[in-house]
């Protein structure tokens, strides 16, 4: 089951780190980094059902997770 309730211990710090990871990159390099990040996280999650829920939610954030 995909966790959609707040799950980050230090959200501001985590968000800042995400943005800082892109520091100094061109837009193309940033897109490439994002793609690598998605793939790394997908592999970490592994569970196809959770990934499917995440993919649907990303495509349509307004829908309830199913």
């Amino acid at each position: 089951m995909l966790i959609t309730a707040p799950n980050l211990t230090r959200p501001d710090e985590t968000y800042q780190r995400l943005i800082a990871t892109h520091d100094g990159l061109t837009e193309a390099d940033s897109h490439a980094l994002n793609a690598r990040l998605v793939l790394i996280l997908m592999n970490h999650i592994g569970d196809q059902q959770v990934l499917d829920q995440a993919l649907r939610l990303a495509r349509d954030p307004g829908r309830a997770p199913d």
Partner: protein
Amino acid sequence: MNDLGPERYKLAFRLYPYARSPDQDAPTPTRHKVIVAGGGPVGLATALDLGRRGVPVVLLDDHEGAGLGSRALCFAKRTLEICDRLGAAGPMLEKGVQWNVGKVFHDDRLLYEFNLLPEGGHAFPAFINLQQPWFEKFLHDAILAAQAEGAPIELRGRNRVDAVTPSADHVTLDIMTPDGPYQLKADWLIACDGARSPLRGMLGLSFDGRVFEDNFLIADVKMKADFPTERWFWFEPHFKSGDSALLHKQPDDIWRIDFQLGWNIDRAKELEPANIRARVDAMLGPDVDYELDWCSIYTFQCRRMDRFRHGRVLFAGDSAHQVSPFGARGANSGIQDVDNLAWKLALVLDGTAPDSLLDSYDAERVQGADENILNSTRATDFITPKTPVSKIFRNAVLTLAEHLPFARTLVNSGRLSLPCTYDGSALNGPDHPDMPPRARPGSPCPDAPVPGGWLLGHLGRTFTLLTVNQTAPDSLYAHGLTVPCLAVEATPEITARYLGTAQGAVYLIRPDQHVAARWDHFDESAVAAALARAIGKA
């Protein structure tokens, strides 16, 4: 058309020269049991399989043998197992090239190497590389051997089918030969006449799917110097061939090189030897000495017919379904069509099974074709990303693959052709939960070593009852069929592949070596019921 015209292509081997048949002088069209149209790998294998089952078969081809050019090159393990049942695998294995090491490059960087390390305990390797004309020649050699033993197979070269007229219980064919036209009738017609299938066109049947806008240049080069027997695949190669390039080895010191050229190309210009040599030089480096052996440019589509059975006409191989070359699923899936069709047609012809058994050919092989189309479409989309964002993800996978094994599992330059498991087939009987999923009903039997050889070599070409830790009679008789029983020891391979954690195992195996049903104990009435189901009687 009132004459045969010149040959459309050159031959590598002239196998069945034209000879006038008495049928051409018959006052009324001779009626045959089965006519096979097309003498490529699928047509030859169909004639061979039917003939070895004692079914009289006439094969018609508008040429007289195997066309020039390596074309289908990778023959997978299941194909070799089927050819072994047909008595043709030995020379294929001897002539074919085996390889285990592959290298994947992006631009000018080696990302990683892999070793296939195939599972032990199988008679045949994961696949071999062998030029298509040789594959056809070895099938033809097996046909000659079968004919010598009385198999009723007849091959007619320079016999072009010009028209087909379907009737309720037969078809009529108009045929053109060097001596002019004649007609034949057949109870069953098997159309193995390739991706452009004239028969499909004559019957007005559609062939829909996805067109990939790309051209591929094949250059077969002969190299004198040692060059490793490895498969090299480039994404976005530095030598600017387009989106990909592939190098792998054939017999006779020949290497197959595939260059992806893109859609808008000048075909004639790309085929000029100087232009091909410029590409090959850039790929191999300046110091490699080679000769161009054979070159061709091709495009491909992923598509299939809605149905492979149309009354008394059955389509097999590329005439029924077409895939991209990535993953070697063209000829290999065609041979699986043959494997599926021949025993069913033989049982229908001798009255053992109802005509409806042939509908299961359609259902099972459409399932196989869809699986192949899915796999080859996925590989094509990975190799040639269709949108900017899919290219970003593709290149992200390649970047990660240089360092991280998980990303290598996502790199898709064509997946190994594996035979289809007919999950959900109407022919499947009971399953047992304690046995390995890989041998569930619908699966092709995994091979295993047994005393004196290999399991698949002991299965023969009829239904077989395989038992492990169970006693059964030497043979059973039910529904018009004699089913021999084969008892095997629970060796480590048999346990892993068949027994699982069950106390005993009883497998009903179809003539195409797919599992029909399995139980943990022998029960004759259960076996008879599953047999009825497997021949379409239930």
